[in-house]
């Protein structure tokens, strides 16, 4: 009964130790800019179409959902602001984290796991190079950096999706739709969204590199690494979503009291 729980705690602990190793390597022996750019480009290109499409539909969904409520209060003018705010603060980062976990997380852990079980990682060490610096760090940073690009792409598309739904379904024109976006989407909402995005990206990047790097035992081991990545990132993201929401609400309250 206790054993599975202990295993989970072990796993989290080892993942944190691995994260520390990555950060220390980044500080002491950073990888080249080229390799970071290459990975960032790869992740962005891999995921932009999916993220953009999903973003578009999120905007559309939010608009449909908020239409009813705003209509009931005669506040249809705030439709665009509300749905964009919800996307920036919550749905956007969460959705992008999930998409990236399914795509980039699985890809990265399978790739690294295969390199591990075919001893390519050992071969790198044998050639006097540092595998953390050469292959882990660029992938880690690539995922973190590109998740911000993807967030931006997703948000822009969600505004378009919302606008379209706004005029087709709710009967407000695009100008009206965007008018109250600046009123409702404050700097604070944007900061909140960016913070979430960063936290989720850090979770994803450290879990998938850790799981891949520590894979053992052939094809089965690679399979386990991929499944492990999916489970650990999804759970981690949801838990930290709750935690960051709590944190930012508290921060906001403190801020308001202070003013």
């Amino acid at each position, binding site marked *: 009964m206790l054993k599975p729980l202990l295993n989970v705690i072990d796993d989290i602990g080892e993942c944190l130790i691995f994260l520390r190793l990555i950060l220390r390597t980044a500080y002491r022996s950073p990888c080249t800019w080229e390799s970071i750019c290459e990975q960032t480009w790869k992740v962005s290109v891999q995921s932009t179409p999916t993220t953009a499409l999903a973003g578009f539909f999120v905007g559309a969904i939010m608009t449909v959902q908020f239409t009813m409520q705003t209509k009931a209060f005669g506040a249809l003018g705030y439709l665009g602001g509300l749905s964009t705010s919800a996307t920036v603060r919550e749905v956007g980062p969460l959705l992008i984290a999930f998409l990236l976990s399914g795509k980039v997380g699985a890809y990265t852990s399978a790739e690294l796991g295969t390199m591990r079980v075919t001893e390519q990682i050992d071969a790198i060490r044998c050639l*006097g190079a540092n595998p953390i610096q050469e292959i882990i760090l660029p992938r880690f940073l690539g995922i973190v950096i590109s998740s911000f690009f993807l967030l931006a792409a997703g948000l822009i598309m969600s505004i378009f999706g919302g606008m379209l739904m706004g005029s087709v379904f709710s009967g407000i024109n695009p100008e009206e739709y965007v008018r109250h976006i600046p009123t409702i989407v404050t700097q604070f909402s944007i900061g909140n969204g960016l913070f979430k995005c960063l936290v989720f990206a850090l979770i994803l990047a450290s879990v998938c590199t850790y799981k891949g790097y520590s894979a053992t035992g052939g094809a089965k081991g690679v399979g386990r690494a991929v499944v492990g990545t999916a489970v650990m990132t999804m759970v981690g993201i949801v838990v930290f979503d709750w935690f960051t929401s709590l944190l930012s609400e508290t921060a906001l309250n403190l801020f308001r009291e202070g003013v």
Partner: protein
Amino acid sequence: MQQQLALQDVTIDFGDGPLLKNVNLAVAPGESVVLIGPSGLGKSVVLKLFAGLLKPTSGKVLVEGKDLHALPAHEQSALQLRMGMLFQKNALFDSLSVGENIAFPMREKTSLDETEIQRQVDFFLEAVGIAYAAALFPDEISGGMQKRLGIARALALRPQIVFYDDPTAGLDPITSRRIIELIQKLREEQNSTIVTVTNDMARAYQLADRIVMVADGELIITGGKAQTLANKDPRVSQFIRGKLDGPLTGRHA
């Protein structure tokens, strides 16, 4: 310096009893040692201990007189640069082309410019006889060619010490012989120290100054061909003659 590589009282345990127990082995500069023994008893582990890929549970691994696992990371990787390794399953970088596989260590660890790297790559591809395949990927070439590529990559930084893990596994007899001749030729050119794992006894006799059998957590050090054939240890005589009856029978699958 009297010894280039040494294991001193090394024990290694992966959690289900020690695989090697208090073993000692010293390899002199320029010597060629061949490791033989039933599979799964730790031949590859010995090579990985020397190469710094595995840490002994207790005991010391000395490379050029330095305790490999007690060194700070940068000195350890400096020593690793002096060693090259052909992995049992080659461990080629499958996302890089044949030529890039050889260029990789030079790009990472030397300040050679691009034209010089290309010249070196061509030189090594030529030396192992796969020049035509430079632009192909590792999974597009045959097993023998992959071995040759693995050897070329191991030698790319001109290491003083080279480990070959089963260089002739799965190859036909003619290719095997060519690979061993290649290893010997390269060894003479570089005057390097080599440790080779093989269970092909003909090739082992051809290559070895000294043969060491890995079994029962021990290293049974014999000698050259004549001494190995004359060795009294029943495990050695059973193994090298491939007899079905003897102390090794029934213990390992």
